[in-house]
């Protein structure tokens, strides 16, 4: 999904790094093998990156400059329009902004604006991530039922975090595209909450 963009811009001192928030390398393998990425394509079964960057859904993108500084905080963007009919989000707008930044034609967000747009985690959310972490550790050890209890508790503590609520469905024997997901999504959006939260214009 991102390989074409990586190829296009790699000559400008740029790389893409993708991270799969999946239950196992095997869950991500078909996607990665189909994409044949030339960029690092990493597996994060324990949601290390979601915790470090306070990510709450996928896809989430972050721009990091050559000094290792965040110059665009968590945003929603797709590499292609494959899912546009479902998400309503077009790839082109972000890709245009990314190109301009990478080629040095446009400045990224200022530090002040970047901070303004950052969402910071709450204590309840970090408690949810601890519950997720324990659940994930139990799941890795074949303790699926015990794991599910902690995943459910995590979802109650952080109802806006779909890396937890949806991302743990495959570890709870639930189809993450199935009726239980649609029911969860319906309840969430009916209450006036967006599933995707792209940065404001």
């Amino acid at each position: 999904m991102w390989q074409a963009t990586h190829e296009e811009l790699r000559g400008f001192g740029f790389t893409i790094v993708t991270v799969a928030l999946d239950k196992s390398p095997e869950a991500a393998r078909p996607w990665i093998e189909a994409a044949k990425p030339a960029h690092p394509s990493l597996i994060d079964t324990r949601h290390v990156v979601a915790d470090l960057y306070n990510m709450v859904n996928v896809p989430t993108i972050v721009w990091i400059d050559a000094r290792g500084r965040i110059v665009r905080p968590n945003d929603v963007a797709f590499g292609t329009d494959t899912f546009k009919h479902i998400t309503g989000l077009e790839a082109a707008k972000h890709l245009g902004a990314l190109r301009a930044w990478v080629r040095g034609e446009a400045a990224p967000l200022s530090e002040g604006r970047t901070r303004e747009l950052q969402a910071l985690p709450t204590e309840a959310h970090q408690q949810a991530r601890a519950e997720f972490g324990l659940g994930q550790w139990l799941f890795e050890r074949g303790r699926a039922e015990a794991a599910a209890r902690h995943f459910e508790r995590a979802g109650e503590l952080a109802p806006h975090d779909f890396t937890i609520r949806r991302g743990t469905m495959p570890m709870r024997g639930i189809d993450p595209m199935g009726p239980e997901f649609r029911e969860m999504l319906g309840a969430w959006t009916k209450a006036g909450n967006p599933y995707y939260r792209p940065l404001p214009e």
Partner: protein
Amino acid sequence: MAELGFTVIDDGRAVEVASAEGVERARHAQGAGRPVAIDLDERAAYLGVAASVRARALASLEAPDFTLPDLDGRLHTLSNHRGKKVLLVAYASW
């Protein structure tokens, strides 16, 4: 000597300790303001990272560093790309 068999996962690393020590470490971490998930039946506790610690790191705008494997198990570290602009993309199959 007390029997081991209680696992404390701290900073992503699991160590086995005696139950009393495990519970004590969990309580101590909680007292220090860290989020703690504990399961006495499963004899395990996960010590997480406080919201204030994460918030401070993010607000500094230094991109938090991490090391993760690819499909072949080869480890990659974000900061090894220093000198390049990076688009970090988190996605999933779900």
